């Protein structure tokens, strides 16, 4: 019964009042849904961390002497493999480009235990589902004489640092 009544405009109501009611309805709807939308965006910003607590991108690994020529040493904690050939040093990522497992050095280069991707000595894909080569990171000598790796800076494959 009441539903019927609400749909019929009472006789004394004029056009102007109806329009005002409609306008107010519109304004408040836009206000409510607009605020909901804005708060949604704000929430997205809220849950996106500004600072992360994980490992720093830049870290030192020790003096060059600790890595004699011919070294191929995987630092699993830092997820890089330090390679020294003669006087040249480079750092290749050991995070598989497929789905993020840690690749292990093998005779032919690197192999991933998760879905069987294989890489050559320079990190180029030689088999399996990995879509691209392992990343090379910037290596430099810090003022204190230690080698420093910056995982924030990727360098072209084949870029060595001369010690």
């Amino acid at each position, binding site marked *: 019964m009441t539903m019927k009544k609400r749909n019929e405009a009472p006789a004394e109501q004029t056009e102007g009042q109806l329009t005002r009611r409609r306008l107010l309805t519109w304004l408040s709807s836009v206000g409510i849904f607009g605020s909901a939308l804005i708060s949604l965006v704000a929430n*997205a910003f809220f849950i996106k961390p500004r600072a992360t607590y994980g490992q720093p991108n830049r870290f030192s690994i020790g003096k060059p002497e600790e890595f004699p020529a011919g070294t191929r040493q995987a630092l699993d904690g830092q997820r890089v493999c330090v390679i020294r050939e003669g006087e040249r040093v480079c750092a290749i990522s050991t995070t598989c480009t497929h*789905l993020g497992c840690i690749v292990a050095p093998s005779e032919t280069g690197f192999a991933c235990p998760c879905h*069987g991707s294989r890489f050559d000595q320079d990190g180029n894909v030689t088999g399996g589902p990995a879509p691209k080569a392992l990343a090379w990171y910037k290596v430099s000598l810090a003022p204190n004489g230690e080698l420093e790796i910056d995982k924030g800076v990727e360098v072209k494959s084949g870029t060595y640092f001369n010690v």
Partner: protein
Amino acid sequence: MARKISLSALTELPGNIWNSIFRNPLPSSDLGRAQTSFTNFFLHIHPVKVNRHTLKPWYTMGLGLITFFLFVILVFTGVLVMFYYVPSTNQAYDRMLDLRSTVAFGTFTRNMHRWAAHGMVAFVFLHMCRVFFTGAYKRPREFNWVLGIVLFLLTLFSSFTGYLLPWDQLAFWAITVGASIAGYAPVVGEQMRFLLLGDTTVGQEALLRFYVLHVAVLPLVITLLVAVHFWRIRKDGGLSRPPEAESEPGLSKETTAKVDLVEKPGEAFVTSAGKKHFGIQGLVRGPFTKVGNVPDNSVFAWPNLFMAELFVLILTIAGLCVLSLFFDAPLEEPVNITHPPNPAKAPWYFLGLQELVSYSAFWGGVGIPTIQVLLLLVVPYLDRDPRGVGRWFAGERLLANTLFLIFVIVNITLIIIGTLFRGPNWEFVSPW
């Protein structure tokens, strides 16, 4: 003042308290039971009467109901486990060990939680298959099918977030792989991965985020959507059934009143005899289970439906208890972020995806699953043929059922390959 508290108030106290809680005595007639199922909060989710077809055990097989009961058990055991769990990378694993060794019934509770979680994934899938093979998604139940798909995805996501919490090797590497898959989504992939993990790799932030999603956000959303799912069942006219299930078996065709479902508010029922039936339902839009005013093929929900539900509940609890007594939930080595297990496998229901992912990360992890979900979502909007509703494997639905069967078989085959036939380095091994 003290005079006012008469002796009778004291002697009647227990009775008065009882009556204030239970407004009516335990009903002893059909009418009383019908009234009680209408006025009792916990019973009013049910219709007062249900069609006989709905009660046929082999029609629904109680699959949706089992899924629901497993969810309730998950909430219950999950809250219990929460009393001991700490979402910290330093403590989580030790808490798992404590649950095993020092907490009374700790192992059993954890087992129940774990097996119910696996069970819910399995049964939500079986329920979806039942709904498809009986054509139950057709008009007017399209949207409930869509809600169902969302519930299916939420169930998978709940289980995925729960998987990380023990912080063992299995957990860490499965989530590392899973989160990397999210990173392959076009445009927003990397952002999504970062939001999910709260960091660039799986660590403390990820553990906390997964915990919050697992114990608060997802259960709340699922509870809400399950409520809407159930509400829609009622408003869509009860469970699907073939047209012939509407009429009472004893009545001949001519005397059976055919009811035109009311499509517009304010209209009345018109039976074929031309008699009009007005009622509160006349104001409600859409088809619904009608009560009492026309001959039909329904029986009272109490006791017929309630007993059936109770039976399924007891069966579910019993089955889960037996499983939890004999099989312990796995717990592997503590997390070693420098050493993935070989092979690193996701939970079984994701191994079909992992198998696909071993061919192509994008297609296996993002492309094909997205296409499958989109296809499932539009099923009821593409298949508009009203025939074959309410029967298993109806002949009229041969094409649709065959296509769906292929979808099911392909996915199960991939899961079996991923589970049994893949060994170290994801190379092919024979399980025999």
